[in-house]
C-alpha cells in the first residue's frame, strides 16, 4: 500500500515543480524529476496572465509578455533537448493513454480518472463543512475564559497539538484501518470515503481552528465593550458582532487551507477508495504508462486554480475596501 501515497504527493504538489521532483525521486525512475518542468512553466504563464493585464502600462505589458514567452520557450527547449525526452513524453504525456485513463474502462480493469475526481470533490465538500464547524467549536473553547471550561480548554489544546503534529497520511491510515478493525456496530462498516472524510476533518480542523483563533483575536476589544455595553449577552455579542468581523478577516487564509484540502483528498486513495489519484495509479500499473497521473494532476489543478484566483480577488477587494475606509 505504501506506494499508493506517492502519486498523491504528485497530485498534491502539482503547482510547484520543485516539490514534485523531490517527492518523485525517492521511488521512481530518475526521469521523473525533469518531466514536470513544462507543466509549471505552463501554469506560470496562466497564473501571470491576469496580473499582466491589470499591470496597466502598455510597454510594461509587452516587456513582461515577451520575457514570459522567452522563459517558457527556454524551458520547453530544455525539456525537448533532454536525452530522455522522448521516453518521458511517451510515459507521461501520451495523448492516447491520457484519454484512455480519463474515460476509463472497468471491464479491462481500470477506472475513469475523470469520474473518480467526483469522489475527491464530494469528500472535499463534505469535509469542508465539517471542518468549518468543528474548527470553530475548538477555537471558541480555546478562546473561552471561564474557570469551569478549563478541562475543555486543555483538551482542545492537546487536540490541536496532536493533529497538527501527526502527518495527515498517518491519520488516514489510523482511521481507515483502525475504525473498521474495532468491529463496532455502525462505526466500523462505513466506506473508505467516509473514513477519509473523518481523517481529513480531524486533521484540518486543528489547523483551521488556529486560523479562527487569529481571526477572533484580530477583532478589537472595543468592539466587545461596545456590544456588551448595549446589554447584549456574551453569546449574542460573539455571534452578531465579533464572529462576523473575525470571519471576514480570515477568509483568505481559510480559502488557502481549503485549496490544500482539495488536493489532500488524494491521500484517501491509500485506503483503496477509487478517487482520481488511485484510479490513475491503477491505470499506471496496468499499462506501465503514467500519463494517467498527468491527467489526475491536471484535474486537481482545474479544481484548485479557480479557488486560488478567487482568493486573490477577495484579498484585492478587501485591500481596496480598507484603503477606501482609510481615506474617508
Amino acid at each position, binding site marked *: 500500500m505504501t506506494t499508493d501515497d506517492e502519486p498523491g504527493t504528485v497530485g498534491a504538489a502539482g503547482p510547484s515543480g520543485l516539490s514534485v521532483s523531490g517527492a518523485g525521486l525517492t521511488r521512481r525512475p530518475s526521469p521523473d524529476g525533469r518531466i514536470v518542468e513544462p507543466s509549471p512553466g505552463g501554469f506560470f504563464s496562466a497564473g501571470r496572465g491576469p496580473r499582466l493585464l491589470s499591470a496597466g502600462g502598455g510597454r510594461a505589458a509587452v516587456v513582461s509578455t515577451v520575457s514570459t514567452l522567452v522563459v517558457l520557450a527556454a524551458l520547453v527547449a530544455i525539456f525537448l533537448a533532454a536525452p530522455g525526452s522522448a521516453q518521458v513524453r511517451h510515459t507521461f504525456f501520451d495523448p492516447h493513454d491520457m484519454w484512455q485513463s480519463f474515460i476509463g474502462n472497468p471491464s479491462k480493469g481500470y477506472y475513469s480518472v475523470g469520474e473518480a475526481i467526483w469522489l475527491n470533490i464530494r469528500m472535499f465538500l463534505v469535509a469542508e463543512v465539517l471542518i468549518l464547524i468543528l474548527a470553530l467549536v475548538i477555537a471558541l473553547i480555546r478562546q473561552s475564559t471561564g474557570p469551569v471550561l478549563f478541562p475543555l480548554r486543555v483538551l482542545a489544546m492537546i487536540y490541536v497539538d496532536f493533529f497538527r503534529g501527526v502527518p495527515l497520511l498517518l491519520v488516514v491510515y489510523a482511521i481507515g484501518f483502525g475504525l473498521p478493525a474495532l468491529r463496532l456496530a455502525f462505526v466500523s462498516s462505513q466506506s473508505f470515503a467516509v473514513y477519509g472524510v473523518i481523517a481529513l476533518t480531524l486533521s484540518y480542523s486543528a489547523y483551521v481552528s488556529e486560523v479562527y483563533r487569529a481571526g477572533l483575536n484580530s477583532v478589537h476589544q472595543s468592539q466587545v465593550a461596545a456590544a456588551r455595553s*448595549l446589554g*447584549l449577552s456574551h453569546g449574542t455579542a460573539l455571534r452578531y458582532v465579533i464572529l462576523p*468581523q473575525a470571519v471576514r478577516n480570515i477568509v483568505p487564509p481559510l480559502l488557502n487551507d481549503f485549496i490544500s484540502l482539495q488536493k489532500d483528498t488524494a491521500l484517501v486513495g491509500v485506503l483503496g477508495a477509487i478517487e482520481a489519484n488511485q484510479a490513475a495509479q491503477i491505470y499506471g500499473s496496468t499499462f506501465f504508462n503514467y500519463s494517467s497521473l498527468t491527467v489526475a494532476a491536471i484535474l486537481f489543478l482545474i479544481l484548485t486554480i479557480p479557488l486560488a484566483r478567487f482568493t486573490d480577488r477577495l484579498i484585492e477587494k478587501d485591500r481596496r475596501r480598507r484603503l477606501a475606509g482609510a481615506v474617508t
Partner: protein
Amino acid sequence: MTAASLPATETTAEAIGVTEVHKSFGQNEVLSGISLSVAAHEVICLIGASGSGKSTLLRCINLLEPISSGQIRLLGQDVTRPGVDANLVRRRVGIVFQSYNLFPHMTVQRNVTLAPVKALRMPRAQADAQAAELLARFGLADKRGEYPDRLSGGQQQRVAIVRALAMQPEVMLLDEVTSALDPELVAEVLEVIRELAAGGMTMLIATHEMGFARDIANRICFLEEGRIIEEAPPAELFTDPKDDRTRRFLRRIVEAGRL
C-alpha cells in the same frame, strides 16, 4: 423625545449613586474612594486631566469594569452586589465611547436596531421604525443604509449616540465623545447632547470641552488621582475654584486657550 424620554416609573430622585468606589488595575489604583450622586434629569460633567479616572468611573458604572470595593446604585438599586445580571443593568445605562466603536460590518440602521432586537426582543418592524425616527431626529435620516466607514467622525459619533438611545436608557454616560473628532465636527455632536439635556435625560459626561461643560452641566466635578477634588455648579467652579489643584488645572486650560 419619545424613545429617549424617561419612563414615569421612577420613584427615587437619585439616578446614579456612587459610594466610596475603589478600582485598581494590578498595583495601579485608578479610583481611590470616589463618591458621587446624580439626581434624575441632572447633567453632571466630569473634568480633569487624562488618567484622573473619569473614563474608568463611567466604565465601572456601566459594569464594563468590576470595582475593587464600594457600591454603585442605579435608580436606588445596588448593581455591584453579587448576583446582579450585568446585561439587565447595561440595558438601562447607555454609554458612548470616545472612539465611537460602531460595528463596521453593519449598516447604520443595523447598528441601531441590533441591541433592541436581540437584547430587548423588540419586533424588528418596531425597532426599524424607532431607528428611523431617532436617526431623522439627529439629522442622519439619509445615512440609514450606509456603512460606518463612509461617515465622518461626527456622523459616526451621532450614530453611536442614537445606538445607545435606541435601548431607551434611563441614564446616559458619555466618555469624551468629542475628543477624537476634528474641531469642525465637535459642534454637531455637542448639539445632540444639548438636545438630550433639554429633553431631561440624566447624563454623566466626561469631557475636555470646558465651554460646553459650563453651558450644559448642573454641576461640575473636578477629578484628580481617582478622587473628586471639587464639586460645584459651573458658575462657581469656573470662576471661584476653592481647591488649589482645581485652580492649577483651570489655569492650564485657560493657558491652552480652551476656556
